[in-house]
């Protein structure tokens, strides 16, 4: 292949203001992190509530949570994103519609859509992990908690969830990384996150290989750092005497 690699491209001017291409990548990375982190916090909260609902006695609450999971798990992420960005706003009350479509900065409305989309999509997956984490605990744990007079809420809060979350840290780590990777769908509705900036650099500079190589490296380093962070957390909360914890 006859290709002249030019790694200096990132320090060259984009021709727009005084920006160099590296500035675009930095700004793109900023959006990627802003989308993924906010969506993750929401997904963790919503998914935990749903996961608990699926393990509660009775019929109604588990059924609602199950229906949610099936809906959000069985529709492609991109279809969901287009629904949140193109379809749902048309069904908002008129004042909100005008605000969302006209008054908001287009980047902000795209940001809101993608955060809502990723949060609700990932919540379905977090729900399943929280549910299995709870169900993996010995049945005696909830009996022991109820037997000392804990309410159902206290049983979950003090006994079941602290154990369940420890069990599911590894699969939750995967979801945490997935949400960063999935955030790249935002480029399809015009949010200038990392992938969008990469494509723009490739088009402006014609240095397509360098641009995508840098994007690959950034995603990789970002996810490796997150994985390391999660491993540290897992070690920190490990129960002494169990699961290979220190004696």
């Amino acid at each position: 292949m006859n290709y002249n690699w030019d790694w200096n491209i990132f320090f060259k001017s984009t021709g727009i203001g005084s920006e160099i291409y590296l500035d675009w990548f930095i700004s793109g990375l900023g959006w990627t992190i802003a989308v993924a982190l906010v969506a993750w916090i929401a997904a963790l909260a919503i998914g935990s509530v749903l996961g608990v609902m699926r393990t509660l006695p009775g019929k109604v609450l588990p059924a609602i949570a199950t229906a949610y999971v099936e809906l959000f798990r069985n529709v492609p992420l991109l279809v969901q994103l287009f629904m949140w960005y193109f379809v749902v706003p048309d069904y908002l009350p008129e004042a909100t519609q005008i605000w969302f479509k006209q008054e908001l900065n287009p980047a902000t409305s795209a940001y809101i859509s993608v955060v809502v989309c990723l949060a609700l999509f990932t919540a379905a997956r977090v729900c399943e992990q929280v549910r299995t984490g709870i169900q993996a605990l010995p049945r005696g744990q909830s009996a022991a908690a109820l037997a000392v007079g804990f309410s159902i809420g206290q049983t979950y809060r003090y006994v079941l969830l602290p154990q369940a979350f420890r069990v599911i840290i590894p699969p939750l780590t995967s979801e945490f990384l997935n949400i960063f990777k999935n955030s790249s769908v935002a480029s399809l509705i015009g949010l200038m996150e990392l992938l969008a900036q990469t494509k723009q650099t490739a088009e402006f500079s014609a240095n397509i290989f360098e641009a995508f190589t840098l994007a690959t490296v950034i995603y990789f380093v970002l996810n490796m750092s997150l994985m390391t962070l999660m491993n540290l957390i897992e070690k920190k909360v490990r129960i002494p005497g169990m699961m290979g914890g220190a004696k």
Partner: protein
Amino acid sequence: MIRFNNVHKWFKDLHVLNGIDLQVAQGEVVVVCGPSGSGKSTMIRTVNQLESINEGEIWVDGKNVADPKTDLNALRAEVGFVFQHFNLYPHLSVVDNITLSPIKVKGMDKAAADKQAVALLERVGLAHKKDAFPAQLSGGQQQRVAIARGLAMEPRVMLFDEPTSALDPEMIGEVLKVMKDLAESGMTMMVVTHEMGFAREVADRVVFIDHGKIVEQAPPEAFFKNPQHERAQQFLRQLLTPMS
């Protein structure tokens, strides 16, 4: 203190409790025994409604536990329960296992709860293990912590569901000794166990249950020397000479 009135329970088609009538007086120690599958564990779990009942009444300390208006959480806080598999909270240290419910259910302040926990651990001979985690303890030690956890709520009754059947033989004695001390302190106790030595020495009364029915109840001397019911005779024979 505890009164069963014609209690029935079904698991689908299986009639696990078939008209149980039983009274346990304050300060009394009642040992419940019977063949496996006879319903004895189910029966003791109905006292604090870890198992619901289909018919009849169970009165604990003047409250009907099967009445939907009864505050089950408040009732359970007064009834200690010790499980076959200990069920300590594995993510908490020994002392936190004991203080969790006094702090969260009774609103006791942490310093007082810690002090009480240490006193209880001394009573079960495990004060030196207060900062250990359950997985670092032997089965016998875990069960003694579980008893201390139950006592921390200052219960009026203690229920034991086969407290020694998951233990290695050399650890059974240490748990039974704690239970004996507890009985001597005047605690009302209902104990499902096959430890006939414990029954003989500590119990005021032995209740023999078979197919969900109480078929015999008598003071331990009479029960062991001269069991009336054929099933009880057979059960005792098998317990004493399992190979015959």
